[in-house]
């Protein structure tokens, strides 16, 4: 038995980092549009006009790559079983120091919900973004609602991303390796995703 097992293939990892890069480009270009408090971020891109242009380009990139990523993992992230239910009722053991054991497959319910939320947010941000892109071509009320929904979805997204980054890095040591090198330690897999570990290795419980 090897010490490492593959969690994400090279193409999955590249796709994830394309989504990440476009997300943070959107964040940095959009901050100045969110509030004049963050006007200084425009200078990173040589002014507001350029920031808007880059926001539009990275928006298209994010929309396509993020949705593609979701459909790539759709069958793994949209089904919930009894073991997932237990994870949800006990909050994944994150609210206690006691060791917790859940019979979790490749993704836990938190990860599944995050994937579904980001896919929904991508849709909303993409569609509203289109209305905001060319506001004079659409009825005013649609653009007004879009500006509000775009801001709201951005806020929700950035908060989810903060949690996502925490849980994938210092919150669960060993997790980030899956997205960097593709392999995770067997011990990690057995602790966090035992059902998936057994599927991959064929090991009996």
């Amino acid at each position, binding site marked *: *038995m090897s*010490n490492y097992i593959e969690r994400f293939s090279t193409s999955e990892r590249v796709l994830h980092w394309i989504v990440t890069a476009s997300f943070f480009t959107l964040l940095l270009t959009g901050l*100045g*549009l*969110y*509030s*004049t*408090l963050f*006007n200084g971020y*425009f200078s990173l891109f040589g*002014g*507001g*006009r350029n*920031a*808007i242009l880059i926001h539009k380009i990275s928006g298209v990139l994010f929309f396509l790559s993020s949705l593609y990523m979701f459909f790539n993992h759709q069958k793994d992230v949209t089904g919930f079983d009894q073991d997932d239910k237990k994870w949800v009722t006990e909050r994944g*053991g*994150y*609210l*206690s*120091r006691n*060791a917790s054991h859940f019979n979790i497959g490749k993704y836990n319910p938190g990860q599944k919900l995050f994937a579904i939320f980001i896919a929904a947010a991508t849709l909303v941000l993409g569609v509203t973004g289109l209305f905001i892109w060319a*506001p*004079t071509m659409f009825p*005013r*009320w649609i*653009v*007004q*609602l879009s*500006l*509000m929904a775009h*801001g*709201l979805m*951005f*806020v929700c997204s*950035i*908060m989810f991303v*903060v*949690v996502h980054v*925490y849980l994938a890095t*210092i*919150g*669960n*040591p*060993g997790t980030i390796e899956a997205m960097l090198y593709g392999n995770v*330690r*067997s*011990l*990690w897999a057995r*602790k*966090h995703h035992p059902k998936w570990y057994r599927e991959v290795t064929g090991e009996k419980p």
Partner: protein
Amino acid sequence: MADTINQTTRKGFLVDTSRCIGCRSCQVACKQWNKLDADKTANKGTFENPRDLTPALYNRIRFIEKETSGEMTWQFFNERCMHCGDAGCMKVCPSPGALYRTKDGIVAFNKDKCISCKYCVSACPFNIPRYGTDDKVSKCHLCTDRISGGMTPACAKACPTETLKYGKRSDLIAKATAAKKTLYGVDDLLGLGVVYALEGPPEQYGLPAKPGIPMSIFLWKDVIKPLGILGFWGSIGAMLLHYVTIGPKKVDDDLNVKEDGHE
């Protein structure tokens, strides 16, 4: 950007619609002073021309045709930027200085600072800002350049019937109130810079009875924006708190209880 207005020194217009004869001198004078190109228009069976504000038309006369007992009557309405005391355009503009308030309380614009986001188009309670081929905001700025030189705005200067009266806003309102005029825009949106004496209900002139910044724009800028900043830092704080109170899920925690010697 905090938008503050000095109500006592504020300048503005009083537009007495009952005096307007629909000559459109205001439209022409505005175009001349602001060096705005002519717009090509089409005859749609009405004297109203053009039919809407354009990037090259900062104010226009709306012709409202009314039929009472078989006879057609006209009402004329001067449509332009209202220079709201609480201006939706300024609330949403992400580029400081692109839309700004002058010391006279006028909402003026600086095309050099406009970044073409067009948020002002959506936030205006009266649907006034227009974007031209230069992709920059344009609207009535009450001839800021003339005012600063002690002159009257071009449209008011040209108006032959004193429909458009420019001056200290509080004086204009006081005089019109004394003349028992029905005024529109005295208190709405912290007072409009352009106050109208109307001859009928506002709706008849295509005006909202109770003008306000659109609800979704208010929620976006005054609710979601501040709560979002709070939520961002709150989520970072919550993660740090989790790390130092409950702590990370270390894989090695289980090493002592599980037999992993065979690895």
